[in-house]
């Protein structure tokens, strides 16, 4: 079952030139795809490829200028659907500092459900549940400003979870974090997905994409490829034409395999790949 369907959707920004005239910049250009319920979808593309614009179309922050976006069959173009859609599609952005609204962690997480007019006892439950999901329960009474970037981002995820969405969209939510923070956020995303949440991960880190069910590659507003990580990364020239890169380990595995070494061409673990090569060499 599809939770989100994007059908020939386009989006354009108005641009203002120095001479006073205006123009249009097509950020998302006639894009179609589906997101299956419970899947882990990665959206990748160069800076300016339109992936963040596309992400904002998934919950109606941007409404398509052409085509349509359906969330559980409801069109984002219909204003009366928006409330229902935003309840189902939660979003976390890049900069953790821009997403904190309260001075205490649990109040920050409660912001969403409060605005949905949920009864207070249930809010308390939801906040406790959401903080538990991101492993931040012990920080409930702390100030968000004193947390690390990864912790702040997990609080932001908890804030989205407290609305109990079906889909969680992470729009480069790991981009500003150090490797430790990135690991924490990714682990949370994977756990939520394992528990049934649909996750859409937008990222520049190709290694983060390897566990996704489906990878969507964007280039200049269009989708240029879609498939499993290995289907995508086995096409090195396609990936590089989209200004991306194949993860180093996968690239090495593929090149070794093509050169006649019988190693697993879809190996994603550098240590394991080294082990495979050793076995080959030491057999002789």
């Amino acid at each position: 079952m599809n939770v989100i369907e994007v059908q020939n959707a386009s989006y354009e920004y108005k641009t203002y030139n120095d001479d006073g005239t205006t123009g249009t910049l097509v950020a998302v250009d006639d894009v179609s795809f589906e997101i299956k319920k419970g899947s882990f979808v990665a959206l990748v593309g160069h800076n300016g490829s339109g992936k963040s614009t596309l992400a904002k179309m998934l919950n109606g922050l941007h409404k398509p200028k052409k085509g349509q976006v359906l969330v559980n069959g409801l069109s984002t173009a219909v204003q009366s659907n928006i409330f229902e859609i935003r309840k189902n599609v939660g979003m976390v952005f890049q900069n953790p500092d821009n997403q904190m609204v309260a001075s205490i962690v649990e109040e920050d997480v409660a912001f969403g459900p409060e605005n949905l007019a949920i009864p207070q006892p249930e809010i308390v439950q939801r906040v406790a549940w959401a903080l538990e999901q991101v492993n931040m329960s012990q920080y409930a009474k702390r100030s968000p400003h004193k947390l690390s970037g990864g912790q702040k981002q997990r609080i932001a995820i908890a804030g989205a979870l407290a609305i109990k969405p079906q889909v969680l969209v992470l729009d480069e939510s790991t981009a500003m974090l150090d490797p430790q923070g990135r690991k924490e956020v990714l682990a949370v995303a994977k756990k939520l997905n394992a528990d049934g949440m649909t996750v859409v991960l937008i990222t520049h880190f190709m290694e983060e994409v390897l566990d996704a069910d489906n990878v969507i590659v964007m280039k200049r507003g269009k989708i240029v490829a879609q498939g499993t990580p290995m289907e995508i990364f086995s096409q090195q020239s396609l990936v590089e034409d989209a200004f991306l890169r194949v993860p180093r380990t996968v690239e090495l595995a593929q090149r070794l395999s093509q050169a006649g070494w019988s190693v697993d061409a879809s190996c994603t673990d550098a240590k394991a790949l080294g082990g495979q090569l050793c076995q080959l060499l030491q057999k002789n």
Partner: protein
Amino acid sequence: MSIVAKELTFVYNPNTPFAKKAVDSVSLTINDGEFVAIVGHTGSGKTTFLQHLNALIRVQSGQLYVNDIDVSAKKVDLKRLRGLVGMVFQYPEYQLFADTVEQDVAFGPKNLGVDKDEVEARVKNALTLVGMDYESCKNKSPFDLSGGEKRRVALAGVLAMRPKVLVLDEPTAGLDPEGKREILSLVKKLNVEQGITVIMVSHDMNEVYENVNRIIVFKDGKVLYDLPPQQLFEKEDEIEQMNLEVPFMAQFTNQLKRRGITLKGDVRTVDQVFEAVQALKEGDVC
């Protein structure tokens, strides 16, 4: 001529209950023309150390020389020091402010008191160095540029000061893989062709591994390791204990080494590793 730190120590909020030693008797020398990476966890003291280099933070105790300038002296010629050491902070494009690209890049040298013709020449040169076309971009608003272009213009603003040392704090953060590649090859070019000493802070161990000649690891305000990349990442257990990532190509070559197979030469990029493995085919197995 080089950067020499001797027993450099810095304490935030000294003599208060909140005192925190951020840099703890660091001694090191960075020579002209080196390309060095500084790595370490958030809070390891790397930024505090670097802020000493152009006296954004004054020396509390210990000594620091940048070329012939004694930065630990009471009176420091800040103008000269800051002309010598260019700092590029994280997300430098957030610091763009002028109406046009030209004005933005000219801001630094103008404030150094450089005369008009020289400023123009420097702006032209700096923009060309970062791969921007001077004529077509000089009158544009820096805010109309793409993310990668903005970052290059911000870098040009620092290069227009003609620094001998360039300190970059996570220069590739937030860029796509192609943007990363562009910035890194640009920095490498500045290092090799212009002879600029480059000190780069990065969290991306793969990027560091492939590009620099020397890695300084900070931990709790101290220099824990100061080694060439391949030697550093041979210490796989120690690196993982510090919660730093071991680069993928190092994981691969380390695994071979554990089984008694040593790849020859410089094997840090995918290309180099692939070629070295291919060479084994010719019966070159150890």
